[in-house]
């Protein structure tokens, strides 16, 4: 009898971003790879979603309503879901951005110029790889 592949446990991603183009780009790749998404376009919605769901992935803009407020959301995601893969999309990668990423337990930072499909594909590869082969926290 042919072996059937083991089912992949459904994963849930929280996208916290204000740009519809980025949201839909991320969603299309996530959905193709069996990752369900919940979208929050503001801080209260993001925090409410965190209280209501178990997230495996978090994709957060560093700027939601004002510059830098996305870091708090990434910190809350790390605190509530210690094993989640949390990434932040930031306008630039300078020392302060790196410091914010470290201090909020972010796995990866992506430059906002990267295409959302490319960002989502990198995340999918990271979260579907066996734990031993997962890349460490990096800057892309």
């Amino acid at each position, binding site marked *: 009898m042919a072996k059937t592949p083991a089912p992949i446990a459904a994963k849930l991603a929280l996208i916290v971003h204000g740009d519809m183009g980025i949201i839909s780009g991320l969603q299309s790749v996530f959905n193709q790879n069996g990752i369900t998404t919940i979208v929050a376009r503001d801080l209260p919605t993001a925090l409410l979603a965190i209280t209501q769901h178990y997230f495996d992935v978090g994709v957060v803009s560093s700027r939601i309503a004002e510059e830098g407020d996305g870091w708090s959301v990434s910190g809350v995601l790390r605190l509530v879901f210690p094993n989640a893969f949390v990434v932040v999309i930031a306008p630039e990668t300078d*020392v302060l951005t*790196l410091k914010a*990423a*470290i*201090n909020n337990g972010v796995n990866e*930072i992506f430059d906002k110029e990267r295409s959302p499909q490319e960002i989502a594909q990198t995340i999918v590869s990271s979260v579907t790889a066996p734990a031993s082969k997962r890349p*460490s*926290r990096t*800057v892309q």
Partner: protein
Amino acid sequence: MPHKPSVLVVDDEENITRTLQMVFEREGYEVTPAYSSAEAVKILENGHTLDAVITDLNMEQEDIGLEVARVARGLKPPPVVVICTGFANLKNSRRALEMHVDYLVSKPVDIEELTSALRRLIARRQYTTKGPR
């Protein structure tokens, strides 16, 4: 008796190490001081069980604190790792992110920021390694 959290403080500037030792002992920690990265690595490799390591970055060599962080991250369970530096740059901050350093604090150190971050990170570590109580 409640468990006293243990912290290794590493800095080649003796006055900084002693000040941090005093601060954390007052906060109820058991503090082990080390005055070089080599001394810190020796302590880490000797099987000391630690809840946290706070290390300077530039000691015997530039960015050598990252080696202390790397050895600490390899322990099972890994202690909370905090880098304390006045010389953060793109290269060393990127490496710190890649090796999952838990916190990066700039010198001069804001003691309130450091003590509160350490308390939070140790609590999180205890929760994730032992589960909720």
